[in-house]
């Protein structure tokens, strides 16, 4: 443990910058990390650093104050339980990432004795806290968590959302079905081998116990199938649940009848096995991503509360939905403008990139309207609200009809299509054979009728999709591509048009794309930062965010020469920042990316190279996609990057610029009217409408805990280049489902050939059902993995 390389932060493992922060012979990258270390060492929680090396997350950002947690209404929504003594609350901490986190968070009571108990749920990244609210307030708890590096993420949506999972009710149902299935199998074995006449009373005893076991299976575990079949019949649709429910019902009634008339052992084994396997299939299909939300809307993007100013200028936090027209609000640096408002005071430089896709921050003058959703980049603002949050320009987008639409416009899944015909064929076949036998004997006719419904019960068909999709989902999940549900895989396979957003999707818009070529001393960096911050030119903003200096220098004589650069003086040093021509008086060379040259006192220091950084391997990705798909680029930004991007698309007409969120939505709708199946890939709120309208919307994010607009799938930026593989894999998966359907049909034909003659014995049913089920499960899981390997999604 004692051996640490010098430049690495002891807390978070990041490289330390020039200013060395040292405590106890340990280096820290920033004051935040040092603070966390101090708090932990005072609280005797050094074990945190012993469990893992550099367990912390970097603290190089401004912490929140959580004033709004003192508002009783907001706190009440968060708190699970409260009595006179203690409060119980569950908080979402995106920072949880290793075992040290668990250890530290579960020892919170050594830092503050007001906390009674804290338990971490690692996978959900939640901490469950009990505390004495007389000793420590909820706000103080949130601040304590923030001070040790685990800032709680509290958003309006989480406040509203309870998040109960349905999976929990499924597990008891599986348990009951499994329990009954196992017992019924044991009791059915004697019948398989034949019971002699002298021991016939045993056979009867087994049958009645088996029937008793069937009752909870049908009326508890299998009840959902009847419910869903009923609902779908009411809507005039024959979905897969209809033949399944019919099968279960017929199995149960036939078993009852067989017992009552002493006609045989009944089908209890097939019935319980069927329900058990079906529920297992459902369980496999359901995958929940606790840390992801696909249903997010603007509310999780906005702050929970806003500082409202009264006449005396004092600020008080107020819940966002309570903001009304005419309120004066204060917005600090890096905060989001919560409602459409008029600028009253302050230097407004607003980054609308998330709302409009425009990457340049916009300068606003006093009295101008600022639309909600922009992020303030320079100092505090005072604003007057002109529209409440729910009616602002941005949230108005959510009132668009595409947000109200149900999923029925999405493509029908294969199983839905097939099961419609399947049910019709099944019913007519059963009726025909009943009518065929009727003239001879109604018993044989009824026997054949029920036997067909039993044997043709599409168990294998119903299982092929969940098992294939379940396997596909977990393979995609390993590649950091998270789908909302299994239907998305099938829709992905049907896609023929792909629409990309530009900023944040095709390009990366962060400070990593800035590099200084030359030698930059820290003092000069501070100076350049202080000159650049006076300019609203996008390149200056990029350099500012790259240098990120905290030193404040008084620069005078600042002058910006449009199209060339800027000059300023500081303590008799003349600073020139701008184009090569302007700084060095040389002729400009041809180059691909913008360069910003620097000279101080006629001494040339070097230049900043600013790349509009494209995602790595974009070329290969587009080359591969262009072969099979129509590709479009649709951007809210201007066309300054056109030369860089146009070579990746088939035609210049496929690149659209300066598109408003509504334009994007309309563009997708227009493509869909021409029968295109559109995949939209975007990242910001400005894409939210298009993501909803498209057949599949994929939200790209570089940090999975960040806000992503509502979508069908979330793709981690680091897997962006795998997109063609994902699409091919989706197609292969659908093929597997088709193949397994063929196998299921083969089994059905064999079974029906017995049933139609009225010869189906419980033994044949009991063999065929598990045999088909197991072979389908094996086939789908093996071939899905083979396909994943083929498309390089598995090692």
């Amino acid at each position, binding site marked *: *443990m*004692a051996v640490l390389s010098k430049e690495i932060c002891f807390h978070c493992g990041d490289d330390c910058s020039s200013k060395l922060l040292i405590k106890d012979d340990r280096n820290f990258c920033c004051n935040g990390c040092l603070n966390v270390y101090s708090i932990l060492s005072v609280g*005797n929680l*050094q*074990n945190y650093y*012993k*469990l893992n090396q550099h367990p912390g997350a970097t603290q190089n950002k401004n912490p929140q104050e959580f004033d709004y947690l003192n508002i009783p209404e907001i706190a009440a929504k968060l708190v699970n339980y409260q009595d006179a003594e203690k409060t119980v609350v569950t908080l979402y901490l995106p920072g949880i990432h290793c*075992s040290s986190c*668990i*250890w530290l968070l*579960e020892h919170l009571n050594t830092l503050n004795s007001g906390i009674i108990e804290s*338990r*971490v*749920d*690692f*996978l*959900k990244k939640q901490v469950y806290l009990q505390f004495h609210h007389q000793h420590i307030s909820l706000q103080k708890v949130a601040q304590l968590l923030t001070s040790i590096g685990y800032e709680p993420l509290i958003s309006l949506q989480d406040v509203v959302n309870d998040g109960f999972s349905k999976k*929990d009710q499924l*597990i*008891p149902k599986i*348990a*009951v079905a499994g*329990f009954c299935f*196992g*017992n019924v199998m*044991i*009791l059915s074995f004697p019948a398989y081998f034949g019971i002699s006449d002298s*021991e016939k009373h*045993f056979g009867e*005893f087994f049958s009645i*116990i088996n029937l008793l076991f069937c009752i909870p299976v049908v009326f508890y575990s299998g009840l959902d199938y009847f419910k869903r079949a009923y609902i779908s019949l009411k809507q005039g649709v024959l979905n897969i649940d209809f033949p399944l429910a019919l099968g279960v019902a017929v199995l149960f009634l036939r078993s009852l009848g067989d017992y009552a008339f002493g006609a045989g052992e009944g089908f209890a084994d097939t019935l319980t096995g069927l329900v058990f396997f079906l529920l297992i299939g459902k369980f496999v299909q359901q995958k929940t991503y606790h840390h992801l939300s696909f249903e997010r809307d603007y509310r999780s993007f906005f702050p929970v509360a806003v500082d409202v100013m009264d006449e005396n200028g004092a600020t008080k936090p107020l819940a966002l939905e309570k903001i009304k027209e005419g309120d004066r609000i204060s917005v600090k640096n890096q905060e989001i403008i919560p409602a459409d408002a008029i600028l009253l005071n302050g230097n407004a430089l607003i980054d609308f990139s998330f709302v409009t896709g425009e990457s340049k921050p916009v300068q606003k003058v006093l009295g101008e309207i600022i639309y909600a959703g922009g992020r303030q980049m320079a100092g505090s603002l005072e604003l007057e609200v002109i529209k409440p949050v729910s009616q602002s320009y941005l949230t108005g987008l959510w009132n668009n009809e595409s947000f109200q639409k149900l999923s029925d416009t999405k493509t029908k899944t294969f199983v839905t299509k097939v099961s419609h015909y399947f049910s019709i064929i099944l019913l007519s076949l059963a009726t025909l054979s009943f009518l065929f036998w009727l003239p001879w004997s109604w018993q044989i006719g009824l026997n054949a009728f029920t036997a067909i419904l039993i044997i043709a019960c599409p168990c294998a068909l119903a299982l092929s999709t969940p098992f294939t999709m379940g396997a596909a989902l977990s393979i995609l999940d390993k590649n950091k591509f998270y789908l909302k549900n299994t239907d998305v895989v099938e829709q992905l396979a049907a896609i023929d048009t792909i629409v990309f957003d530009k900023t944040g999707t095709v390009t990366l818009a962060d400070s990593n794309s800035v590099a200084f070529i030359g030698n930059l001393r820290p003092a000069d960096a501070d100076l350049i930062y202080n000159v650049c911050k006076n300019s609203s030119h996008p390149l200056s903003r990029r350099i500012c965010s790259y240098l990120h200096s905290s030193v404040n220098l008084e620069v005078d004589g600042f002058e910006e020469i449009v199209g060339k650069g800027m000059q300023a003086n500081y303590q008799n040093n003349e600073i020139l920042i701008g184009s090569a021509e302007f700084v060095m008086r040389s002729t400009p060379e041809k180059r691909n990316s913008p360069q910003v040259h620097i000279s101080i006192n006629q001494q040339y220091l070097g230049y900043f190279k600013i790349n509009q950084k494209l995602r790595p391997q974009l070329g290969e990705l587009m080359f591969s996609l262009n072969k099979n798909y129509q590709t479009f680029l649709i951007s809210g930004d201007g066309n300054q990057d056109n030369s860089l991007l146009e070579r990746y698309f088939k035609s210049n007409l496929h690149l659209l610029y300066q598109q408003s969120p509504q334009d994007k939505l309309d563009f997708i709708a227009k493509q869909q009217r021409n029968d295109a199946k559109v995949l939209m890939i975007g990242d910001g709120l400005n894409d939210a409408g298009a993501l909803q309208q498209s057949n599949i919307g994929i939200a790209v994010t570089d940090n999975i805990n960040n806000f992503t607009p509502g979508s069908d799938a979330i793709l981690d930026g680091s897997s962006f280049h795998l997109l063609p593989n994902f699409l091919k894999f989706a197609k292969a998966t659908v093929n597997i489902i088709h193949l397994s359907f063929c196998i299921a049909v083969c089994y059905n034909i064999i079974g029906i050939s017995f049933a139609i003659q009225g010869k189906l014995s419980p033994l044949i049913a009991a063999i065929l059902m598990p045999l088909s089920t197991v072979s389908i499960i094996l086939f789908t899981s093996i071939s899905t993995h083979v396909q994943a390997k083929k498309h390089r999604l598995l090692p």
Partner: protein
Amino acid sequence: MNIIYFLIACSVTLALCFLAAFFWAHNSGQNKDLYTPAVRILFDDELVEEKVEEDVADLP
């Protein structure tokens, strides 16, 4: 062979006990978080504090 009635009654009762145990475990939330308890059990108690510091001091 009539003993079989008794045996089956026993086996079903026993199986029902296990089912009941499963329900109890499920309803008390033991299936909710299957990861964290596995990590939690590996943490040492606070008492190791001094001992670990000695180890560090022993290093050259």
